[in-house]
């Protein structure tokens, strides 16, 4: 039997829920594999030595996250960074928009419902100065981005892996799955996502809304755009963005809007707003994205 371990670092536990969302297939999986360690589900407290597949979710936010990640690496043959936090820092990476001191001060002293007090400093582990994806500290054998990875994807990846087969995963962007129609329209205003009512069936970018579908890895089936909501990029950068040193999420979106609207790129750039949360929300903690020639992340991040 293949031995699987699940470990959660700094995260929301949504990745573990997405594995439970295999539902009945969970029973099938458990016929082929033993979950030997998973604190969220079971009481085995010691990480076993001979793990075949370790699935780590969440980002590395404090010293203990880092130690645990390194212990898992040592004890497992195949280590998977599961979910956008483990792959790119995820939404937790937005904390890098502020310093650690600003984060703790807002929570424990400069807060309207909190009686001002010293920071927690007994027993609790020290924060790292920035948020890290797992690969900053150790070798990762497989990356499965997604916030969280969709249950079908989990199924399509985990079942072959357990059977020692290479999973066949889609490599297209969200746009490839989105049913909305992209068209050239002349407009000169970028809308906030709350303004107006987006026309159903028509591409959000073609209507002047910031949608990250064209620059985001699309293993979600375009669920958000189908639900009437522009893509927020939770699946992490598309393969195009990852492969091209000069291709960044920010400039990719600008180019696409300019192309569809005939607005000069400079004008698009002027109108983009809240770039930290809207454009880079899921990848701020990623050095891969920060190192892009045209990335704005270095300007946004306070180290």
């Amino acid at each position: 039997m293949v031995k699987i371990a699940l470990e959660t670092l700094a995260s929301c536990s949504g990745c573990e829920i997405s594995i439970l969302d295999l539902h009945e297939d969970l029973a099938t999986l458990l016929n082929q594999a033993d979950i030997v360690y998973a604190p969220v589900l079971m009481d085995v407290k010691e990480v076993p030595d001979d793990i075949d597949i370790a699935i780590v979710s969440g980002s590395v936010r404090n010293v203990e996250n880092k130690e645990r990640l390194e212990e898992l690496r040592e004890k497992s043959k195949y280590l998977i960074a599961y979910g956008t936090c483990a792959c790119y820092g995820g939404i937790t990476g937005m904390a890098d928009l502020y310093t650690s001191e600003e984060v703790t001060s807002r929570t424990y002293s400069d807060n309207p419902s909190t009686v001002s007090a010293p920071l927690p400093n007994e027993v609790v582990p020290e924060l790292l100065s920035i948020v890290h994806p797992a690969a900053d500290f150790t070798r990762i054998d497989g990356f499965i981005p997604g916030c969280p990875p969709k249950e079908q994807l989990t199924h399509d990846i985990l079942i072959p892996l357990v059977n020692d087969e290479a999973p066949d995963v889609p490599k297209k962007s969200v746009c490839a799955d989105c049913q909305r129609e992209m068209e050239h329209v002349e407009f000169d205003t970028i809308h906030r996502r709350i303004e107006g009512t987006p026309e159903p069936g028509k591409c959000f970018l073609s209507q002047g809304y910031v949608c990250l579908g064209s620059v985001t890895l699309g293993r979600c089936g375009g669920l958000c755009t189908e639900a009437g909501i522009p893509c927020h990029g939770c699946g992490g950068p598309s393969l195009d963005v990852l492969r091209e040193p000069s291709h960044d999420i920010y400039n990719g979106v600008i180019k696409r809007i300019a192309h569809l609207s005939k607005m000069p790129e400079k004008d698009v750039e002027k109108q983009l707003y809240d770039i930290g949360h809207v454009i880079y929300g899921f990848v701020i903690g990623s050095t891969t994205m920060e190192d892009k020639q045209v990335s704005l992340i270095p300007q946004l991040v306070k180290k």
Partner: protein
Amino acid sequence: MKNIEISPVSRIEGHAKITVQVDDAGNVADAHFHVMEIRGFEKFLEGAAVEEAPRITPRICGICQTAHHLAAAKATDMVFGLEPPETAKKLRELMLMGQYIHSHSLHFYFLGAPDLVMGPDSDPAMRNVVGILKSNPDLAMMAIKTRKIGQEITGAVGGKPISPVTAIPGGQSRGITSEQQAKLLSKAKDAIGLIEQGVEVAKPLFTQYSEAIEALGPVESHFGAITNGGSIEFYDGPAKIIDKSGNQVYEFAAADYLDYVEEKVQPWSYLKFPYLKQIGFPEGNYRVGPLARLNVVDTIPTEKASALYGEYKDQYGIAQNALLYHYARLIELMYAAERAVQLLEDDSITGTDLRQNLSEPLMTQAEAKQSGETKRGVGMIEATRGILIHDYETDAGGFINRANLIVSTGQNNLSMDIGVRETAKQMIHGEEVSEGLKNRLEMIVRAYDPCLSCATHAIDGSSPLAVDIYDSDGQLLKKHLL
């Protein structure tokens, strides 16, 4: 002085530690429940266009994401002064019922029940859902099917089962079709049948473990919950606070929470300790969540849940025992499925009037800065684990200046801490501490279904559950691996 450490507490969401200090005579001097991380949502929401908050905050917690999504959406409704149309409100409530069915069945069957079904002293390797799958596959499949229906409802209404997206300022981005309505209605009815079977399995356990219910996690507190004229209510309404005897102490609307709730920072935990401001700390301790809700409300307006509630009420009255959270959770699970059926039997659920739009264009960031004005929105909801409050102050253009979050689990933090300490004092004498006894301390924490990811705040990297015993010089005497 010896220090016993239990880390991580398992079968909970997020990571925590329990420490017990034993004096030289072998008696417990002190004990604490520690929450080990902070992620900082309150800070990094600053600067965000507030309409993004319903998309960012579900990532506070992957288990009660819908509650964060909706609390955030309600706060943005208020920031922009937009009232969602009736259909949108019903859809949001239905989405929340999906959340309850998923989260309550996850907690009861997957995380909590193994202690009762397999026994608190059973083999730790089998005391989990995998063990139940192997020893009682029918029960496990029933649990899986129940939770699946919750996720299907959330997915259909919210766009995705985890981190839904459809609640937007002023309403919903998408409705459901009559085909979806029929399909979901049939599933919600199936859920009622599955939950009835679950209740049959669970009820005898509360009789079997009546001694543990009395002994584990003793604490008496105030209770807080949203109610709608005394009836159970998850989506909207004022919060009511009762004392330990059941008398009403306060009732307040979301926007006024700062007059009633204050939070204390303790050096040993990243999770703060909320309490009733006017009563003070620690006397103003209050609990939230299933046990609190069933104490606060007078009625549950659906047939089967109401019958279960009557029986429970006759037996326990204003219940104080932490393990009864499990019982209360099952009754609410039934209510959620029945309420989902009610909402789906109402044809207005397929209505197409789904959102109110802004009547005026938004200020640009420059204009907003110049005006110097601010806006505020507070969204309050009953998350599965209790009252959840999202409070955003924005500039005139709707960019967040300050965010404050009172998360459900925080409000139970003091009671978990007291419960662990008092139980340790009663049960631990001397150096030898059995695995089963340590598991009992964890069972107290588990009963509250703490969501430590939610603690905004929360999660350490965790080390294996080891109990280290040190002497007074800090020398390691003994290491128990559990």
